[in-house]
């Protein structure tokens, strides 16, 4: 057990699975000696060498394809795409190859690979390095999509992703990476958190808040403030994986509270929470005493200037205010 940041927890997960299984290797740009753009793989090159920690040219398309090809022939590649925005350069390999091979081949192959990538804004990286693209991946059958919100989950989910026999998109929030604030006690050694199960991070009875990734943390903060200032008791659900989606945990909660707010960092229009709301509509309409609403980013590229970026992305205050406004309507 040690107090680890989100980044350290993922690194530890990689290190431990690589120690156990020779078939696991890393591939990506500048992940070797340099340790990756965020330093996440730092030290792994020294431990596992250049064969298993493979630096690549700037060739997103083919490195994703390489992961696919090695996965179907018996390896378990872990691929780093430096920023999730760069998946655009290899989207065919994700959506048409990795995701579909099993189905296209009539179930005769499996594609056990993890595509790790840094997601989200809030770090001032501007329009090409800050997107939240989970809705795009979640729409593609054949992929799984994981969005951990804290170090403990990150490690357990990562290990599950590595041992999953399907292509997993593992979205790591860059603001969480090195944050001491969100560091946590994380057990040494292998443990897993199942893909497809959400978790109630804070039980509550007044309103259900569903969130992903960094937004879980912000929602928790908003909940604390509301508890203290207004004795409002929010239930915070962390989806953890959006595909498979644990809709039951959401429905259970809404059944109890009658109210739902979905918080995501992506641009609101066409964002993933539309799926959650639509499923709640279909399966839990009668539980709702108020319309479920979404809190998300505005519909524009992520701006560089931090003033604008902060305005764009849901903040603790915005979440708090929207919760109040939903509750005040009833």
């Amino acid at each position: 057990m040690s107090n680890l940041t989100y980044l350290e927890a993922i690194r530890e997960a990689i290190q431990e699975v690589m120690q156990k299984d020779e078939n696991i290797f890393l591939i990506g740009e500048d992940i070797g000696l340099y340790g990756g753009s965020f330093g996440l793989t730092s030290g792994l090159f020294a431990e596992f060498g250049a064969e298993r920690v493979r630096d690549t040219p700037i060739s997103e398309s083919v490195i994703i394809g390489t992961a696919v090809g090695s996965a179907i022939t018996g390896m378990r590649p872990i691929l780093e795409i430096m920023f999730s925005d760069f998946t655009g350069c290899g989207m065919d390999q994700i959506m048409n190859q990795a995701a579909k091979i099993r189905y296209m081949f009539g179930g005769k192959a499996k594609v056990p690979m993890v595509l790790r990538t840094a997601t989200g804004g809030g770090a001032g990286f501007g329009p090409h390095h800050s997107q939240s693209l989970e809705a795009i991946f979640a729409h593609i059958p054949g992929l799984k999509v994981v969005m951990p919100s804290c170090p403990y989950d990150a490690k357990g989910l990562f290990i599950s992703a590595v041992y999953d026999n399907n292509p997993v998109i593992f979205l790591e929030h860059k603001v969480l990476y090195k944050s001491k604030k969100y560091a946590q006690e994380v057990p040494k050694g292998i443990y897993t958190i199942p893909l497809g199960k959400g978790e109630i991070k804070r039980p509550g009875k007044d309103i259900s808040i569903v969130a992903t990734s960094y937004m879980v943390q912000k929602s928790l903060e908003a909940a604390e403030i509301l508890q203290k200032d207004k004795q409002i008791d929010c239930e915070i659900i962390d989806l953890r994986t959006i595909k498979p989606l644990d809709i039951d945990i959401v429905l259970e909660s809404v059944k109890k509270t009658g109210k739902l707010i979905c918080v995501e960092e992506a641009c609101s229009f066409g964002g993933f929470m539309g799926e959650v709301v639509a499923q709640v509509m279909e399966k839990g309409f009668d539980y709702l005493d108020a319309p479920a609403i979404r809190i998300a980013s505005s519909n524009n590229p992520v701006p560089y200037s931090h003033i604008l970026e902060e305005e764009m992305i849901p903040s603790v205050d915005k979440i708090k205010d929207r919760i109040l406004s939903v509750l005040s309507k009833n």
Partner: protein
Amino acid sequence: MKENLLIKGKTTDLKEYKIADRFKDLEKSKKIEILKKMYQIRYFENEVEHFILKGEIYGTCHLYIGEEANAVGAISAIKHNDWIVSHHRGHGHCIAKDSDLNFMMSELIGKGNGYCKGKGGSMHIADMDKYNLGANGIVGGGMGIAVGAALTNKLKKNDGVVICFIGDASTNNGIFHESVNIASIWNLPLIYFCENNQYGMSTPIISSTNIEKISDRKASYGIVGLTIDGNNVVEVYNVVSHFAELCRKGKGPILIESLTYRWKGHSKHDSQIYRTKDEVERWKEYDPILRYKNHLIEENTVTAGEVLEIEKKVIEEIKNAADFAEKSAYPELKELETDVYAD
């Protein structure tokens, strides 16, 4: 428009590499097997064309007639457990890699016992048991996969080699560049076998590139590359044998441009407005099957009569495959949502 590159005078590259004539030492049975496979492809594709005409092939489908020497020559030169990666025009590669004709035909007409349970169709037939990583509906889509398979060989320290079949026009896609470059810096055991059939759909390769030989692209990667006669199965066999061995010794990758021609239209629907009948006829003079048959007869490996026997057997086999496929059942509806995820 520039003159199409024709076969003549294009195989001079060979000399540079001191490629031995391994073919002549092959066992008779193997030499005959090569002929048989070429016939299988030819008659299989003819049958597929019938299915197209009968409306039983949906969507689209790409025939390999005229290009048989490529798949058969190249695949005969590697081992059973060497991986191949195919592309949209993939039937020939499957047959050369010993796929079952019945299940192939079933797949093509969407039957439940087809190679992909009817889920893939012509553009997605794969056969993991035969080390065939599949066709691909995306031009260039397999070129990363091939790198991955070759990397597996390298990481597992086995001496496997991978052949990645690609079309001439696919070499203009970015993934070609990324793929060959990375294979080169990693010295992967990977042969890019480029079937230059002169066109990508309607577009002559000479108008979508500005170079005479696709194999000249080797210069971008510091690898060996050469242009060969893709309608001569003996040459293909010898060249691939030679370079497969080098690959196994860590001297890959290799870029082989194999000059050939597709006799039929690009796909199911093709007016062929972009080429002349005359051009097609000129290429038919280089019929790879005829050339090989004559070669075998000349070197006394077979008699004309034996060849006829083989041909007859193949025709029978293909007829059986067509019957098998037609009699097979369509997939059950409950199969729709299976096979999306592995456990």
